[in-house]
């Protein structure tokens, strides 16, 4: 396979697909390669916080301003991916009110709407908060569904002519003198090889930025910081709950549909593949977040997961929380004398659109075709059919029927028909592709039963042949990474059941 494009984007995270959409809307021919599924890296492994900017108001006013601006834009262009929950920054006795005062002032400076609440007012809004809190500050934090956001950007980019190639890796760079001319690629599932010729290649690989740049013998200063998060099996608060103190471990609780996400830690790692949550991190998160919401101590956790923040390093800062969460746009023609290559890295999920805008501006200018950005004005395709969680729940109940077939996932009540329709509609290429696009394996048992059933369905439909137990084992091994550190109490019981099935009964 040989193909040509004006711009080739590497990386299918929020930034990559955001770029594909932005450039396509500007009429630039675009292709995107992603080594796995969309949002497989940090874009899909975060707390799903729609930042108000409050978190950075004191430490990083520039980032805070970017956040609140993008917060407003996302609510407009992607209302279906956002739940406008509001957020509270709560002060515990040990935090004192000094930081709260600085925080309020900083929010005002960054033009983040912030309202001071008394202890009683805060407890009235969020009865599960620790009764000892001194008070809270209300900000427009929210929750965002990162995967839908990424897929929606991808869908719109495709509708405007972008070519998206997931499950594809770049095997080498085609360089002519001081210019990058394109890349050679390989399909990770079929093994098929090909070439993409492109005068402009944008490295939007997030934590993998240096892995990609090493193909050109280049390197940028980047710190990789692992952030671990926990998922509870029910939603503990209506709003996002932050600790009102300088950013540190275990200071946030984000509601996400029917569950809550507890975060985060910050651990320096060497490779972007090192995202194993540890027992120690889990204990720390439970200890810290339960200071804000005591119920967490007895909550049933269903999973731990970790993502890698790509932090752009301007100088040798030691504490990763001190490194700016702002982004970096690097023109390797200027920096390294390799023309046609641009890296966009750093940043946050919430600023993906802004990062895409600035990068597209740069590329268009370099191509001599300056065109204005429209992504802040044009809603994503699904925005018209906006559905809040409560509305989706209602629809789910209506959709639940005898004709829907047996319930494959008892945790999330997913019927056979729903899965069969999904399989019909799309080009899904591996188990992860399917799991990413359903609620299968998202509930309390984390796929302990439904993935076995899904494989059964795939054999029945002749979509899979041969020994799918290898896939099943791989899934269980992957699942284990998130389960192992949270095993105690009821979870321990349930895991004994799962292990007795797969290692015992089925002797896998």
């Amino acid at each position: 396979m040989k193909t040509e494009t004006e711009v080739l984007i590497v990386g299918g995270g929020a930034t990559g697909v955001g770029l594909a959409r932005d450039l396509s809307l500007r009429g630039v021919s675009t292709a995107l390669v992603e080594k796995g599924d969309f949002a497989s890296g940090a874009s899909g492994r975060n707390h799903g916080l729609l930042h108000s900017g409050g978190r950075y108001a004191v430490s990083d006013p520039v980032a805070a301003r970017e956040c609140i601006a993008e917060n407003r834009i996302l609510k407009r262009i992607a209302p279906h991916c956002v739940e406008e929950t509001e957020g509270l920054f709560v002060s515990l006795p040990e935090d004192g009110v000094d930081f709260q005062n600085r925080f309020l002032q900083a929010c005002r400076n960054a033009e983040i709407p912030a309202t001071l609440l008394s202890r009683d007012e805060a407890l009235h809004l969020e009865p599960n908060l620790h009764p000892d809190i001194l008070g809270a500050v209300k900000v427009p934090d929210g929750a965002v569904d990162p995967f839908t956001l990424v897929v929606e950007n991808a869908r719109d980019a495709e509708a405007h002519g972008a070519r998206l190639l997931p499950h594809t890796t770049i095997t080498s760079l085609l360089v002519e003198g001081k210019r990058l001319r394109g890349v050679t690629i390989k399909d990770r599932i079929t093994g098929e090889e090909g070439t993409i010729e492109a005068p402009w290649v944008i490295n939007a690989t997030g934590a993998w930025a240096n892995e990609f740049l090493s193909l050109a013998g280049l390197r940028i200063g980047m710190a990789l910081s692992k952030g671990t998060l926990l998922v509870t099996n029910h939603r503990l608060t209506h709003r996002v709950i932050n600790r009102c103190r300088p950013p540190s471990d275990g200071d946030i609780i984000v509601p996400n549909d029917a569950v809550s996400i507890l975060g985060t830690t910050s651990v320096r790692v060497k490779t972007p593949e090192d995202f194993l949550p540890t027992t120690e991190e889990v204990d720390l998160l439970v200890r810290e977040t339960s200071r804000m919401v005591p119920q967490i101590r007895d909550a049933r956790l269903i999973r731990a997961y970790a993502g890698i923040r790509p932090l752009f390093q301007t100088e040798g800062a030691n504490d990763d929380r001190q490194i700016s969460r702002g982004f970096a746009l690097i023109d390797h023609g200027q920096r390294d004398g390799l023309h046609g290559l641009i890296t966009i890295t750093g940043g946050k999920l919430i600023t993906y659109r802004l990062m895409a805008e600035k990068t597209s501006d740069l590329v268009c200018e370099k191509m001599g075709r300056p065109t204005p950005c429209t992504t802040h004005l044009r809603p994503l395709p699904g925005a018209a059919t906006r559905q809040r969680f409560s509305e989706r729940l209602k629809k789910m109940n209506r959709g639940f029927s005898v004709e829907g077939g047996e319930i494959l996932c008892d945790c999330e009540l997913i019927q056979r028909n729903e899965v069969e329709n999904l399989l019909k509609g799309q080009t899904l290429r591996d188990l992860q592709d399917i799991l990413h696009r359903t609620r299968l394996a998202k509930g309390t048992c984390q796929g302990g039963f439904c993935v076995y059933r899904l494989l059964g369905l795939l054999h029945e439909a002749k979509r899979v042949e041969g020994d799918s137990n290898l896939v099943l084992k791989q899934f269980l091994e992957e699942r284990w990474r998130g389960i192992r550190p949270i095993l105690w109490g009821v979870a321990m019981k349930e895991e004994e059941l799962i292990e007795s099935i797969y290692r015992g009964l089925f002797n896998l």
Partner: protein
Amino acid sequence: MHFDLIVIGMGLTGLMAAKTAAERKKKVLLIGKGFGTLTLFSNTIDLMGILPEEVPVKESLPLWIEEHPDHPYGKVGMEKIEEALSSFLSFFPPPYTFQSRNGANSLVPTGAGTLRPTYLIPSTMMKGIGLREKKALIVGFKGYKDFYPHRFSDLFRCRAMTVDLEEAHGAEVSATTLARWMEEPSFRQRLTEGIKKEWKGEPLLGFPALLGLRDPMVVRRDLEKRTGASIFEIPVLPPSMPGMRIFNTFREKLIRMGVTFLLGQSVSRLLLRGDRCEGVEVAHAPLVNTYTGERILLATGRFIGGGLRADSSRIEEPLLGLPVTQPPSREGWFEEAFFASSGHPVHRAGVVVDSMFRPLNEGGKPIFENVWVAGTILAHHDSLYEKSKEGIEIATGYTAALKALGG
């Protein structure tokens, strides 16, 4: 009421202990909040699945025990293991019985399309052995979500079909429902008609293990007569109908032998005096009933059964607070890989007993004068890895009861 022996836990261990005592004319109380893992996983009787298939376990197991003196089997001994298995088998005379092939482990096909080593196999599963060399049609049921015949047949290179049953009305059907339907001749007639639509004369028909709860051999013989093919069962996801058959048989026979059954009830408190346990309290809101006994046998299982409980730092035995030997911290409970080749250390945690099956304190001294502990709650085994669960339950339930009775 006063009993000679109070058994807490109604899994296979508790049932065997009750049987052993009842056969010796003792007055037995059996209390259980559920059926334990018996009705979840016990399709066949595992003894020590990691031993080779070619050698009779009579030869290989004694050598293994010698190398693992701490293992519960080390405390039972080969002779008593065999006695215990015979005692179990006495409840299952042919036609529905459990057999080994040549006294050794055999590989039985499972619902996941894998082979699993086990020792005693119910009569309904025997013909599934050596399936790869046979021509078979595997039958599944529309609406039954825990067995996928096409996945199974892709792995065993045979043929598969799904029967669409009119009585299901297109809805979901559970294993228990199917097993009950199987007991109706009219259902078997319709099933046979359904199968014949796609049957290409394969001499062997494989079904998920749902051939009735009460009399699977009658169900099988009738289906064999109607189809003219040989029939075998395949163990599937919980619940386990073969396990329920074991439970039902025990319950019926033990009640006939005079054992008092308290099913669905849990012990709320033990009556302790000095180093004796004088009885149990069973909360049956709003009443609390007290039962006294000469001897108490604890067979409460592991985490699923509630015999062991874990908080975020330690594993405890909740009923008597017995010491539980365990890895030093939670980090050491599980290996990093789910399919770790040696099994997870947490499975070896449990209650330590002496050769009499009396629980020991950290100093190695018996804690109670009249309390015995048996089954998977015991330390120093990994029944998942070893494939030894039913063997441990039968052997220790039997032996601990004998020891309790002074045998």
